């Protein structure tokens, strides 16, 4: 497979404009400016590119929702708040090839007739922010940003905006609130950001990886992109792999690639020669798969959905046979309770309840009725809140309890955890 997103990774000075241009970087712009904005949107629609942040919504369709000629400015907001546990692919784009993101922003803004883009970068990514600022400076001084980009008559400025530590700001409307200088509380939809987004204006929010995929599509055409992958899962995807594998890291593979082969050939298999117990394929919020289920699945949106999980962000967490699934869910419940913004009662209270119940089950003080209570809580959280954060805990709760029920029952019966806990190294 010809790499699309990772083609420059590992080259010396891969962050530099000169390296990027040498390998054909910014090559899409010539073609871009000969197209009309509507043609660019149609091209991205035809490519089948879907949002890589987690929702998997077709990017071109999302762009098409932005109303024309409202008299208001249109904004592109790039979501670089990468905070989903297990996900570190956007970070790798910043560190290895920031200009690919800038080129993608130019393409997207041209399609949207947007002249201002905000890139919202999580506060902890200080180094990545500095790298991106340096790349922006290079782009500005080479006429790739500012007024009349490369004689096209198109103007664009890109501003970075640093977050300050809040998982919820990865949710697109919370991100917009945060950008506007408020607490990151998700907004009730409708109105959708396409109509009323940043500062009350039409806005598209896209993930870093989604935008970085656009220049290749413009340069090589939608047809070539759609030829990669399978069915409605077109193109390539970055997977960030962590946990119990021999070679954790970020890998680019065509959508539809079998998990079994990916685990062996890219990730070096399960570490220490151990057996696989479970896999969380798309970031901590998606349902966990058993080893058996994972070994039969292909890594694309439809196959993963058919297997009872979601592709999500592509943050893959691999758990070996020594892992305590109760302790793992206990850990996640702490995370979600800590990160709930507290706006909706089912989420604010539900995440707290789950945390308390999981703490006691993990510590051996669980009650037989706790498992039913956990499932009941999941049902009363999912779909009952402003954003999908509550679903993001409900899905792990349900899948962990249902797929690994015997481990939960054993904890309650024994009154202690039968596992030794993760080793350090």
């Amino acid at each position, binding site marked *: 497979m010809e790499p699309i997103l990772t083609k420059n990774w590992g080259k010396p000075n891969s962050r530099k404009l000169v390296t990027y241009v040498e390998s054909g970087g910014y090559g899409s712009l010539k073609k871009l400016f000969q197209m009309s904005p509507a043609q660019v949107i149609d091209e991205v629609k035809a490519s089948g590119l879907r949002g890589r942040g987690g929702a998997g919504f077709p990017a071109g369709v999302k762009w098409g929702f932005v109303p024309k000629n409202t008299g208001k*400015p249109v904004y592109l907001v790039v979501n670089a708040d*990468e*905070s*989903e*546990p*297990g*996900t*570190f692919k*956007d*970070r790798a784009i910043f560190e290895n090839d920031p200009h690919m993101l800038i080129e993608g922003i130019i393409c997207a803004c041209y399609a949207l007739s947007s002249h201002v883009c905000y890139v919202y970068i*999580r*506060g*902890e*990514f*200080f*180094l990545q922010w500095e790298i991106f600022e340096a790349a922006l400076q290079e782009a500005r001084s080479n006429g790739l940003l500012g007024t009349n980009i490369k004689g096209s008559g198109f103007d664009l400025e890109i*501003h970075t*905006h*640093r*977050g*300050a*530590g*809040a*998982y919820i700001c990865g949710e697109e409307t919370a991100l917009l609130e*945060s*950008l*506007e*200088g*408020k*607490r*990151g509380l998700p907004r009730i939809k409708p109105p959708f950001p396409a109509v009323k987004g940043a*500062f009350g*204006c039409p806005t598209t929010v896209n993930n870093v990886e989604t935008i970085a995929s656009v220049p290749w599509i413009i340069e090589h055409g939608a047809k070539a992109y759609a030829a990669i992958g399978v069915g409605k899962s077109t193109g390539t995807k970055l997977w*960030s*792999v*962590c*946990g*119990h594998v021999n070679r*954790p*890291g*970020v890998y680019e593979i065509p959508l539809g690639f079998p998990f079994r082969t990916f685990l062996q050939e890219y990730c070096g298999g399960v570490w220490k020669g151990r057996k696989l117990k479970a896999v969380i394929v798309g970031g*901590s919020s998606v349902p966990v798969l058993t080893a058996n289920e994972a070994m039969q699945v292909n890594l694309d949106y439809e196959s993963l959905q058919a297997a009872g999980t979601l592709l999500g962000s592509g*943050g893959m*967490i691999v*758990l070996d046979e020594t*892992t305590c699934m109760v302790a*793992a869910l206990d*850990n*996640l419940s*702490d*995370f979600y309770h*800590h*990160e709930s913004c507290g706006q909706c009662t089912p989420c604010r209270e539900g995440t707290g309840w789950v945390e308390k119940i999981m703490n006691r089950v993990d510590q051996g003080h669980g009650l037989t009725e706790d498992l039913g209570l956990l499932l009941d809580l999941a049902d009363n959280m999912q779909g009952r809140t402003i954003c999908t954060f509550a679903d993001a805990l409900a899905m792990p709760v349900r899948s962990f309890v249902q797929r690994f029920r015997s481990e939960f029952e054993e904890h309650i019966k024994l009154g202690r955890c039968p596992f030794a*806990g*993760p*080793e*350090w*190294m």
Partner: protein
Amino acid sequence: MAFTFSGPQLEQIETICARYPARRAAILPVLWMVQEQEGWISAEATEAVAKVLDLTPAAVYEVITFYTMFQRKSCARHHLQVCRTLPCWLRGSAKLLAYLEKKLGIKAGEQTADGRFKLSTVECLASCGTAPMMQAGHRYYEELTPEKVDKILEELK
């Protein structure tokens, strides 16, 4: 503790404000400016930020308290932030934390008496492939081992 913005800082704030159609949007960048300089954000600094952005102190304070990275108390020189979330936990972050607690003689959430270290746990920092890890200042320290931790603690004076 009095706090005032310098002339060049006020100019910088106007440059930041010009990026946005609403002045309030400059809150996070201006709070970052304050914390980078002072190490934390005092009540006086909160009032100064409110004044320069035409907001009430409460509007600024509610933002400060929402985001975990803003410090509301003066912080030790080195803030060791150990990631505790699942991917790091699978690779031993609980043992890493215990090692640091023993070595520094403090629990997570506390500071050493000499004001050198503060120890905290934090949620996923997108460093899952290089776990376990911690952040101190702007820097990520990854693939930590006891030996690496010893060396880092020596280097952070």
